[in-house]
């Protein structure tokens, strides 16, 4: 089992908001900060655009983890979008916990200046998912 986990490369879907975290990811890139290549970034205009079905669909299509990033509270380009995100994700994590997927969803605020934080978040999240192993839904498909 441990061997399998060592070789396991998770698929991670990352949602970045256009104004802060996507710029943060950009900064990580231009600063040549290294982070794992497991993630696929989807840019959305605001983190509050991410609705529960996006996350469910991601898990259903085989994502092992979903990372959601947005502006810090108070910094939202749309004034209060990320507060909606925060509220929504609390419920989402709770619901996913019921399905045994709670650990696989993570919400992090990353500003445009935090390239370093983006890198660290990515490294930590990939490590966490590697430790958890493949998603139960993914497992089903391999069979």
């Amino acid at each position, binding site marked *: 089992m441990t061997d399998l986990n060592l070789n396991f490369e998770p698929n991670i879907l990352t949602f970045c908001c256009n104004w802060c975290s996507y710029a943060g990811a950009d900064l990580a890139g231009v600063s040549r900060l290294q982070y794992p290549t497991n993630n696929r970034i989807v840019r959305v205009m605001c983190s509050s655009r991410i609705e529960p079905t996006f996350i469910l669909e991601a898990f259903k299509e085989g994502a092992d983890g979903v990372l959601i990033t947005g502006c810090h509270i108070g910094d939202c380009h749309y004034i209060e979008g990320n*507060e909606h995100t925060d509220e929504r994700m609390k419920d989402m994590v709770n619901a996913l916990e019921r399905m045994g997927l709670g650990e696989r969803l993570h919400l992090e605020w990353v500003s445009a200046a935090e390239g370093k934080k983006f890198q660290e978040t990515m490294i930590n999240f990939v490590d966490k998912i590697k430790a958890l192993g493949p998603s139960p839904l993914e497992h089903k498909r391999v069979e």
Partner: protein
Amino acid sequence: MVKVGDMLVGYATDENVRSRGASGGLVTAVLAAALEKGLVENVVVMKHINEFEAVPIVTDNVEEVLASTGSLHSVPVNLAKYAMGRKVAMPAKPCDAQAVIEQGKRGMIDLDNTYVVGLNCGGSMHPVTTKKMLVEMYDIDPEDVVGEEIEKGKLIFKTKNGEEKAIAIDELEEAGFGRRESCRFCTLKIPVNADLACGNWGVIGDMAGNATFCQVMNEKGVKLLENAIEAGRIEVQPASEKAIAIRAKVNSVMEDLGSTLEKEIFPDIPDEERMQYYMEQMEDCIDCGACKEVCPVCACGEDSKCTMFHSLVDNYKMSMYHMVRLLHLSDSCIACGQCSDVCPSDIPITLLQSRFSIPSQRRRNYQPGINLDTPPFFEVILK
């Protein structure tokens, strides 16, 4: 005159209604009076076919209302959807009343024009299970049954020739019969969310069996009762201290039973097996959509987010339709059990749904369908 918060014992003045009613016929008389006096345009009632079959009808005929008298424990239909867009009065179990309020919060039912006469409910039964139970446990022919009652933790059936047979509910439920699963863990037994809370708990002495205990919950309840008294259809008198105490005691016994059973009905599933559990439960789903059709708190209409995923292409692994519904209803699910009842594949959807909705409702200290003070919690309120 009647005031909000009054505890009364009453009965129908019409001897025929009184004797045929489960306990005094007060509810039937109140509904009939509301229709007669023009308080409402229609009344939603269950039309008897037999003891195990009834159809909900929306009627403006007083005779039909009067004919509907008598209790039915084996026809668990939620009436909330029949009140939509109408000016109606309706009898309601606590879960019907909850559904009416949840729909009211979502603007689907005009609560000012909907009069809800609540009925105490110790639980209802699925007709098919009941028939089977009558043969196997009671040794009674289902055709002979003329009435049933749940009292002091016992399920009592009355037969044509006047016999009564009681078996403890615990015993029945151990054998796999008895109340529906959603009723077992329900803890709302007195419809405090309705306009009138009626029932036979707390009717004592010579009144027992032919009078109804009635608590007036709000202004609409006052209107209903005063209207019925004016019409000369009912007579009421204040309930004694003892009666009130007995009613409260019955209620607390039933509530305790509900919370004890909840732990049994929802055993903890280890984290890593949860996904497997849902997938196994859902794999029989044939995407018929009956669970949405029948859901009394679903207010989205024909085209909604869940039906968007109503195709087999989307559901090759696990039904997105159900996942969306599990999430979406977690702020409004009242665990009425309708979805499990109608499921052609016998998926226990109510239990799956409750695994989602109960924790998230508790976390927010939210009980659906109790009053209008708490908006749906997905309606995020930001200052």
